[in-house]
């Protein structure tokens, strides 16, 4: 259920036990049906488990939306006969939740740690991985402690370790704490970080399924993706498709923040109308003020104007149609008092701070974009600056190793396109059209 508020339109699958402290204990989790799906999976061949995930149509919940079953099938097969010669395989769980606006993984970690562990173990079985690393962001001390305790309990109960549930399979799980770097949420940056290096993304190819963590075949999945796995494997692929659309099956946690009355996480079928999410599920805008803009997928996707937002369906293809991207479904709602220029400047300065510095367009571009926006904010901007911003961000799109650079281009370009009057009011008259 939604936390800290629930709603009747929710379909609570992953979030069913949010706010239920009993559910994070091993016994509590078992009483709620936990680890049955793992038993089922261990009695199946790895290929059959991958087929179920493929059939469900589950798409990666970290932002890119890549089909999970397909990703799993890229891992080289381990042949039982050649066991001794097989390279180690790794499964990494990306719990480095750091996209501004996103706060779903923390809830999954702190309320349902065994759900994630079960998903990790099923994934490890399906891909022949012997070790799962769960990379938690360093700031998540409290949630990480809960997860670490659950892993310890799992080892003690024989669910994790040398003989997973008596199947003869050896799967280790290690909880890793990062040290504060947004870029480590990028999959290859995370691998470098796990290996004790700076979290700089790697050039692909080679892809992680061939050469990943420690040079070995590796798959990396988001917390929410892996948390969905036990439910899919337990109930079947078709079951999961009863929600969502053809291209975006299933349910998704929507993180709503900003100027709504009841912010929080809500689990809804994909395709849910953004309008209903704001005005019904979240109880409407604070003090019933007018909506100005919505960022539907975390700070690295284009802004939607109020008008665009009203017709937007929250599934991967629906948000693209509306002119943005679903990302990790982090809906940031901004009302009429919002100073768009200030908020875009804040986002740009974030990306500038978090750029790893490897690629010139990103290192230089994020810094210059921030400088120009700061100049406009300080009342020293010119109208030419807007053209410069568009030109610079165009050069930052698709020209770097990872997409951090593109991420700053999205809010800058979309805000100049959709809220040009706000920039012009500030440049021409020193007037702010928002007051927050």
């Amino acid at each position, binding site marked *: 259920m939604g936390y800290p508020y629930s709603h009747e339109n929710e379909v609570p699958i992953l979030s069913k036990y949010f706010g239920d402290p009993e559910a994070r*204990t091993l016994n509590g989790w078992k009483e709620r049906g936990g680890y049955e799906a793992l038993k089922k999976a261990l009695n199946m061949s790895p290929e059959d488990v991958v087929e179920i995930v493929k059939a469900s149509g589950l798409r990666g919940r970290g932002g890119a939306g890549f089909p999970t079953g397909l990703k799993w099938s890229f891992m080289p097969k381990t042949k039982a006969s050649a066991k001794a010669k097989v390279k180690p395989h790794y499964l990494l769980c990306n719990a480095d939740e750091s996209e501004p606006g996103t706060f779903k993984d923390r809830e999954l970690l702190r309320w349902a740690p065994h759900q994630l562990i079960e998903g990790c173990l099923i994934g490890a079985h399906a891909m022949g991985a012997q070790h799962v690393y769960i990379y938690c962001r360093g700031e998540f*001390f409290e949630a990480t402690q809960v997860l*670490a*305790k659950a*892993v310890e309990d799992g080892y003690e109960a024989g669910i994790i370790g040398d003989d997973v549930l008596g199947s003869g399979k050896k799967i280790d799980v290690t909880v890793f704490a990062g040290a504060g770097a947004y870029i480590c949420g990028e999959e290859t940056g995370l691998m470098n970080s796990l290996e004790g290096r700076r979290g700089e993304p790697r050039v692909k190819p080679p892809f992680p399924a061939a050469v990943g963590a420690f040079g070995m075949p590796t798959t990396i999945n988001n917390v929410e993706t892996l948390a969905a796995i036990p439910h899919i494997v337990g109930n079947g692929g078709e079951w999961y498709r009863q929600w969502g659309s053809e291209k975006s099956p299933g349910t998704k946690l929507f*993180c709503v923040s900003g100027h709504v009355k009841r912010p929080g996480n809500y689990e809804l079928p994909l395709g849910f109308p953004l309008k209903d999410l704001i005005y019904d599920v979240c109880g409407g805008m604070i003090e019933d003020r007018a909506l100005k803009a919505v960022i539907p997928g975390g700070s690295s996707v284009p802004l939607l104007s109020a008008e665009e937002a009203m017709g937007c369906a929250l599934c991967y293809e629906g948000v693209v149609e509306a002119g943005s991207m679903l990302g990790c479904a982090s809906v940031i709602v901004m009302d009429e008092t919002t100073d768009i220029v200030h908020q875009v400047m*804040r986002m740009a300065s974030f990306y500038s701070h978090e750029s790893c510095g490897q690629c010139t367009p990103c290192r230089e571009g994020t810094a210059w974009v921030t400088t120009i926006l700061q100049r406009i904010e300080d009342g020293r901007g010119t109208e030419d600056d807007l053209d410069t911003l568009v030109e610079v961000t165009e050069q930052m799109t698709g020209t770097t190793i990872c997409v951090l650079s593109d991420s700053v281009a999205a809010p800058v370009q979309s805000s100049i396109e959709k809220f040009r009057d706000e920039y012009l009011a500030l440049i021409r008259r020193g007037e702010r059209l928002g007051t927050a």
Partner: protein
Amino acid sequence: MSKIPFKNPGWAGNVGEYDLTEEQVRGIDFVGVRPLEGGHAAGSATYPYMLEEKDPEGPLFEGPYQARFEKILTRYPTKRAALLPVLNLAQEIRGHVSPQTMDRVGELLELSSAHVRGVATFYTMYNKRPVGRHLVQVCTNISCNLCGAEDVLKAFLHHTNTEMGATSLDGAFTVIEVECLAGCGFPTCVQINSRYYENVTVDEVPRIVAHLRDKGAGLARSTGPEGEG
């Protein structure tokens, strides 16, 4: 819509419709006190490494910390992979990671000084300089910013009588700005040492600061804006 429920036990974050204590929200009721020597090796790299009491010259990795250091090494195929957890461990003891600390960690893990320094300076959670007993990190990124985070930051600077990034004269507080803490639904989100303080408003700041001064960062007892519970 009738009144929207809002409760914030111990500044652990709004529990809304749920009836939860601070210990339950933070998970303390479930986790309890984890042993200093690290417990099971699987979780030995996850301890809180921002403590109130710091020993800047403290020996690295003796006693229970030695045990934890060794457990961390067992979890990775290379020694280098232990670098981040070991730097965390060093910071837990000393409060910050000085060049001397980096060099010592490099020796222990057979890594060059250049590599360790390159890594340590890449990550923002390693304090390169000593910090106060309470490191207050206020998120001012977009979701918190929309809900008044910049005023909360100013209030912390005012009530702790410090400047951004500097430590107060009594050594109690260092206040800095931090990027998104992933608590966007609970604005403003503030990390103080190892704990999150959520739904922090300007009005709450003096009480949080007084609480930290009086009782340390131990469990806070508050039921939110309505008053002490």
